[in-house]
């Protein structure tokens, strides 16, 4: 249920797929290399009525549209609510309590998870389907994981932007839609702009009407020279992070496969959704931690979230070995029909749905493969950036 409804594949197909994906190197049914994504067509800024939008479609016709809309919302300031700025104003502070504390400049901007509202709409699934709730939670979790994103929505102590991300899949998905939705969301966020703030301090905000002057939510490193003013208003912007992307990776045998199609997912031993974000190479110096002495190419990736996707392989029908097949001629009698569920060792060429979980090593390898420096994520981020600017 979690990952694309019921897969209806015959045991023979599953056995074949599993065998061919377990080879080294694996042979994927569509001939892709293990790290290769399906080719996609992408464009941004397609919806003029939004703050940012994007559209991505696959060659098989699956298509996703994401629209980002922002509204100014008054920040709840009463005690007992989730967002109280105790550090700044004191517990009982009314909204207009003006206590300028310059010393707390960096810590001043606060974000809250409730400032981002993400909905996923998948045709063919009910609105209250758990699968869509899971997808939405996964995508917003990645977005909010570092706590930095919500801070970008801070206007002043009394107001913030409320960001609505509406993710719509145009047709019923032909495969688990997570990568598609995530990449589209990424592109939409890249193209999202918020009007330039003209007011100052904690007064009621008003904004510049000139859309061309509106700064990007995720400042662009390439075109930053064109809008220098915008970046200065958002004074202590941390390193130019990108929106996160969530990748679907799965393991079959010893192989790690990216962007699996529906058939491939149906024979997965384990599938993970890994969310990462990348800091642009130019800001490499800003991050402490692991950048000791080594100067490598590629971005500094940050791991944001991991979720296990329930692989549909567990819900597939097992194959029947010829030896045990009653339709196989000889043993037609039903005498030992009571033993039908007898446990048997695996027979080559017969599909058996996986049981149990995944070894720790396998999970570690999956994550490591995603986070590889200069690896798949880097190229995907580069390609997405290209798609946005192009």
């Amino acid at each position, binding site marked *: *249920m*979690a990952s694309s409804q*019921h897969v209806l594949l015959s045991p023979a197909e599953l056995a074949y797929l599993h065998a061919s994906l377990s080879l080294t190197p694996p042979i994927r049914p569509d001939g892709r290399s293990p790290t290769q994504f399906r080719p996609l067509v992408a464009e941004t800024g397609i919806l003029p009525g939004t703050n940012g939008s994007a559209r991505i479609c696959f060659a098989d016709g699956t298509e996703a549209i994401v629209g980002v809309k922002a509204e100014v919302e008054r920040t709840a300031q*009463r*005690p*007992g609510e*989730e*967002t*109280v700025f*105790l550090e700044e104003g*004191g*517990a*009982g502070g009314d909204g207009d309590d003006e206590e300028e504390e310059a010393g707390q400049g960096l810590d001043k901007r*606060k974000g*809250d*998870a409730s400032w981002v509202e993400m909905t996923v709409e998948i045709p063919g699934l009910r609105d*209250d389907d*758990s*699968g869509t*709730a*899971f997808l939405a*939670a996964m995508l917003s*979790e990645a977005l*909010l*994981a*570092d*706590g930095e994103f919500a801070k970008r929505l801070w206007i002043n102590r009394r107001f913030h932007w409320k960001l609505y991300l509406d993710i719509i899949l145009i047709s019923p998905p032909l495969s688990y839609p997570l990568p598609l939705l995530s990449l589209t969301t990424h592109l939409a966020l890249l193209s999202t702009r918020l009007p330039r703030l003209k007011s100052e301090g904690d007064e009621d905000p008003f904004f510049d009407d000139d859309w061309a002057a509106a700064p990007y939510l995720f400042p662009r490193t390439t075109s930053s020279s064109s809008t220098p003013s915008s970046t200065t208003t958002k004074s202590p912007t941390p390193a130019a992070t990108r929106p996160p992307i969530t990748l679907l990776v799965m393991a079959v045998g010893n192989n790690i496969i990216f962007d699996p199609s529906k058939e491939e997912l149906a024979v997965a031993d384990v599938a*993970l959704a890994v969310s*990462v974000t990348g800091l642009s190479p130019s800001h490499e110096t800003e*991050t402490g*931690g*692991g*950048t000791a002495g080594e100067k490598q190419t590629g971005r*500094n*990736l*940050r*791991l*944001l*979230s*991991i*979720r*296990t996707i*329930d692989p549909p392989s*567990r*819900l597939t*029908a*097992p194959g029947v070995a010829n030896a045990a097949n009653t339709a196989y001629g000889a043993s037609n009698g039903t005498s030992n029909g009571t033993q039908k*569920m007898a446990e048997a060792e695996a027979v080559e060429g017969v599909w058996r*749905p996986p*049981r*149990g*979980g*995944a*070894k*720790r090593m396998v*999970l*570690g390898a999956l*994550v*490591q493969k995603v*986070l590889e420096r200069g690896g798949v994520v880097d190229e995907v981020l580069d390609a997405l950036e290209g798609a946005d600017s192009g």
Partner: protein
Amino acid sequence: MNDRRRINGPAGATLAPFFDDAAPQDLDTRSTRSRPPNATRKLLLKTGVTPSASGSAYLEIETSAKPGLSGLKLSCSVHGPRALPKSAPFSPHIVLSTHVKYAPFATQQRRGYLRDSSERDLGIHLETALRGAIIADRWPKSGVDIIVSIIEGDQDRETSKLQGDEVWDMMNTLSGCITVAAAALADAGIDCVDTVAGGVAALVQDADDGSAPSIAVDPIPSEHKRILAACCVAYLPTRDEVTNLWFRGDLPASDLDLYTSLVGHGIQASKNANRVLIDCLSGTVG
């Protein structure tokens, strides 16, 4: 999503009076963790608590000594295996459906009667964790419902004010849900490859700044200054396999060891919970 079947208070209701019982400066003196970083809280697990269900279990995590801090109280009932509805297609396996529901009073913020998105999300996590554990083909054409009710949600009264994010609580809750559901499944006599149990580990920063973050098992969010990352694992000890892994946080990719040891600690926590589970189940046989 409105609950139209019950009469709830008006949407714009006034807040209940809030007594500021602690002076602002007192708030900073949060309760600190008294356990060693690799120790989990005490766990109470009991099966067979609901007579009408095929299998049931109750889990309680010890309540902290500090007033105003509640422990985790979960009850799980398993209904089935039973016949699938007529409209359902043939299934060679048992059809698992999991429901996780907070009692309206379980958390600081009152929950509605209808499941909200975070409860659905938890339900999917739980389903993933359990599906790896059960042997589904033993029960063709049947379905089983696993219902976990969160009676008390392991929340500090102050915690959400300070953390601003309830996801860390959700991880603790999920880990409890997994353990209690595994016990209830075993009680119902549904074939499992192993006893699955949940465990949580977090990368926490206790000092204000400067100090290196450390890993704590079974964290209580309010006991730590800041939680940088956390993970919840569902682990099968005999097979040494993980059926569900949920990680959230912000870790540099270059420091994969940190991630690995975080998961390792999560598994450690799960093993601790598993011992309780095994003891509890052994008690029912003997």
